[in-house]
């Protein structure tokens, strides 16, 4: 089985759960003997060439700016024997704001002007289309049109790559890769499976971006099968995008087991200070509900002063949230760490007494699994897909800040609760493996072949 997989982020270049999911899934697929060609639209720095280039996992770490530990590289080499990576010089990055995106695309455009693409053996019609989809300098007002042509440029490169590759099925992750998936599918005639990690309704509530919605809808209708990360997401796909239920399968995410974590978790016993730590780890955006976290924090602090609230992550609501904490008079109790990488994530989990995910709408939510994997008890919103698979966690409606505070305080006040949640939770999370998800994906591929 060979899979042509279209993604948009991959560790260590990630900004959210999608990269983690792609990492875990492809690794598990590799273990099942499925060959995966992974195409990533990654904004490359100056020393990378702009034409499409085949990169090995080690080569794909190229950008200097990022520090990648040796152990990670070794791990990649060993576990991803069946996965190869293709990078496309694109400004696409997951979760960017329009402004950021515009900035990025300008960088790339300057790079592109210096070089010409030299490729051979491409169908003239496609070649023509590739020319057509060459990026144009963005006009000032319409960022969405930039996004649109950017996605098509990615699609064009994906097609160019695809005709050189041999594969059985196309697997596209989230909306930015759907047009590429459709294009590759129509050029090669191979079946398309799309994987919905998130929908526009999760990210933007009712204020959906029509362009993105249209792309999502087209992708869902063009696909032979749709993989949803939860029943919550499956229901949105059916009710909001007009898809027949029989076409949509639920495949829950997994979590990667890391032997290191447990040893470290044991180390922390006995060395903790008397101050309790409640952790929010995720993008600081509307979707993740950071303001509900703050409102609950205020209520907690009214009862117990000896608590610190750590907000790890960045996002477009960061400044508002910092201001909000200050206005509430709890600024000194709320710490902002910015975006955390690798070891720092591990460290913050080790410090935490409780992990809270107050998401307003969370298609799945891998972070709670990672928290449990790090022996941290979790409190998640009922409006999350992961609530469907976890039983040994605390659950609360995201808007019910009173109950959220009640449960946070209970974990801090009653050690047996923390103990029981941790013991059972860690046991439960060990059953949620990527291998299971990969097997389900394989079954779905077989169904469309």
């Amino acid at each position, binding site marked *: 089985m060979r899979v042509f997989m279209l993604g948009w982020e991959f560790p260590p270049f990630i900004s959210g759960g999608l990269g983690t999911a792609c990492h875990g899934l492809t690794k598990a697929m590799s273990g099942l003997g499925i060959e995966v060609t992974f195409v990533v639209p990654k904004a490359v720095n100056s020393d990378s060439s702009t034409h499409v280039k085949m990169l090995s996992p080690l080569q794909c770490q190229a950008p200097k700016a990022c520090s990648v530990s040796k152990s990670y590289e070794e791990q990649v080499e060993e576990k991803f024997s069946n996965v190869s990576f293709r990078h496309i010089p694109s400004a696409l990055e997951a979760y960017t704001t329009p402004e950021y995106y515009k900035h990025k695309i300008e960088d790339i455009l300057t790079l592109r002007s210096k070089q010409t693409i030299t490729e051979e053996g491409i169908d003239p019609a496609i070649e023509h289309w590739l020319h057509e989809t060459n990026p144009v300098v963005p006009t000032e007002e319409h960022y969405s049109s930039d996004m649109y042509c950017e996605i098509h440029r990615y699609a064009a490169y994906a097609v160019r790559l695809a005709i050189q590759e041999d594969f059985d099925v196309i697997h596209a992750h989230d909306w930015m890769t759907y047009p590429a998936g459709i294009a590759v599918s129509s050029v090669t005639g191979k079946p398309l499976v799309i994987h919905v990690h998130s929908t526009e309704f999760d990210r933007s509530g009712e204020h959906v971006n029509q362009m993105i919605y249209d792309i999502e809808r087209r992708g869902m209708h063009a696909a032979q099968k749709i993989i949803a990360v939860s029943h919550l997401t499956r229901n949105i796909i059916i009710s909001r995008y007009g898809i027949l239920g029989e076409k949509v399968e639920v495949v829950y995410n997994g979590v990667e087991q890391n032997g290191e974590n447990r040893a470290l978790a044991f180390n922390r016993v006995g060395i903790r200070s008397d101050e309790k730590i409640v952790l929010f780890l995720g993008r600081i955006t509307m979707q993740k509900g950071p303001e509900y976290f703050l409102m609950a924090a205020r*209520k907690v602090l009214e*009862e117990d002063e000896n608590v610190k609230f750590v907000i790890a992550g960045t996002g477009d609501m960061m400044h508002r949230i910092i201001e909000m904490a200050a206005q509430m008079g709890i600024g000194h109790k709320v710490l902002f760490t910015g975006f955390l990488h690798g070891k720092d994530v591990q460290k913050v989990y080790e410090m935490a007494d409780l992990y809270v995910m107050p998401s307003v709408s969370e298609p799945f939510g891998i972070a709670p699994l990672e928290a449990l994997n790090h022996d941290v008890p979790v409190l998640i919103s009922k409006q999350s897909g992961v609530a469907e698979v976890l*039983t*040994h*966690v*605390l*659950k609360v409606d995201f808007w019910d800040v*009173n*109950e959220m*505070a*009640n*449960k946070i*305080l*209970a974990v801090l*006040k*009653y*050690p*047996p*609760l923390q*103990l*029981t*949640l941790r013991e*059972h939770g860690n046991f*439960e999370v060990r059953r949620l493996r990527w291998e299971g998800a990969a097997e389900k994906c394989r079954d779905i591929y077989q169904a469309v072949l």
Partner: protein
Amino acid sequence: MPSVCFYFQVHQPFRLRHYTVFEESPRYFDEFKNASICRKVANKCYLPSNRLLLDVIRRFEGRFKISYSITGVVLEQFKKYCPEVMSTFDALAQTGCVEFIGETYYHSLSFLYSSDEFVAQINKHSELIQQLYGQTPRVFRNTELIYSNELAETVEKMDRFDAIITEGADHILGHRNSNFVYRPPNCKRLKLLLKNYSLSDDIAFRFSNPDWKEYPLTADKFAHWVNRANGNGQCINLFMDYETFGEHQWEDTGIFSFMSHLPEEVLKHPDNSFMTPTEVIDTYDAVDVVDVPRVISWADTERDLSAWLGNAMQSNALHEIYKFEDTIKQTQNEELLADWRRLQTSDHFYYMCTKYFADGDVHKYFNPYESPYDSYINFMNVLGNLRQQCEQSLLGDNKKTLCKTS
């Protein structure tokens, strides 16, 4: 020869209302939920079952007999929320064919933590039964049939019970079966009546299970199984939750018609009879000693305490509640004492069980909470407030005495 001995357990806990750590009100129980559940179960089970059994008893003119163990907490609720249930139990009591069994008033696990409290609750229950039905219980059953040698010794010392009812667990019986009267070691007076769990569960759990090879269970088939004990047993102890009839097994499963036909099928065999527990122990001598050094119960397949004491939350909650027994008794405040005792009802700890939580089975069906964690949080918040009320009450008393002395 075998005498069929029915005992039905009647119980409903006082369920707690949603109680956050921010609450200050000393009202802990969910009146609305308790009233509606009580009425619902009354209509589905207690009333139709009582009427049916009353009818059967009258029809057989003294040849059909049953016994009940009704907790104090459910009687309080009947009185409050559906008094008609009280009158049907009263009618049953008047037939002379119904025995009432003694237990802890609050359906508590007090035996494991405080023998003072255990004895006090048994006495309170017996007084209520005497007052309502004119009988002083002579047979005792502990909450969830929790039992050990030690419990037998404690009950023997009370000097007013003749027998204890418990589970006929395989590991305490060994090669023996439950169809005889036994006795505990180190006890002179007490006898033991052991539940025939196989036949009891055929009615209580398997009755409506279409995958069971004996499905459907008919009265004559069951009577045939009873007859098989001829020559190898004196009594067949069928102990089960009364809610089996109409609530666990719904009316459309045919459970009521089964019960209505069972007596005549059993009595077709001239050697068979129905007896109350007291009649059984008055008729038959104990054949052997059953040694139970470790605590048993009738719950789950483990027949142990793990449903109430299986995780850190449960043991913490239980320890916390019994830890302030002295303080609460010092206040001499009847309301606080009653609330404290209502919190001892075993159901509160059962809700905290994480054993089968993920699989979602029988434990979940009876659980008013979404998760065992929610129930622990709620319970601990209530307990925290009760402790505060206690302290305030004692502080107030101190002030009063100070005022008086000055």
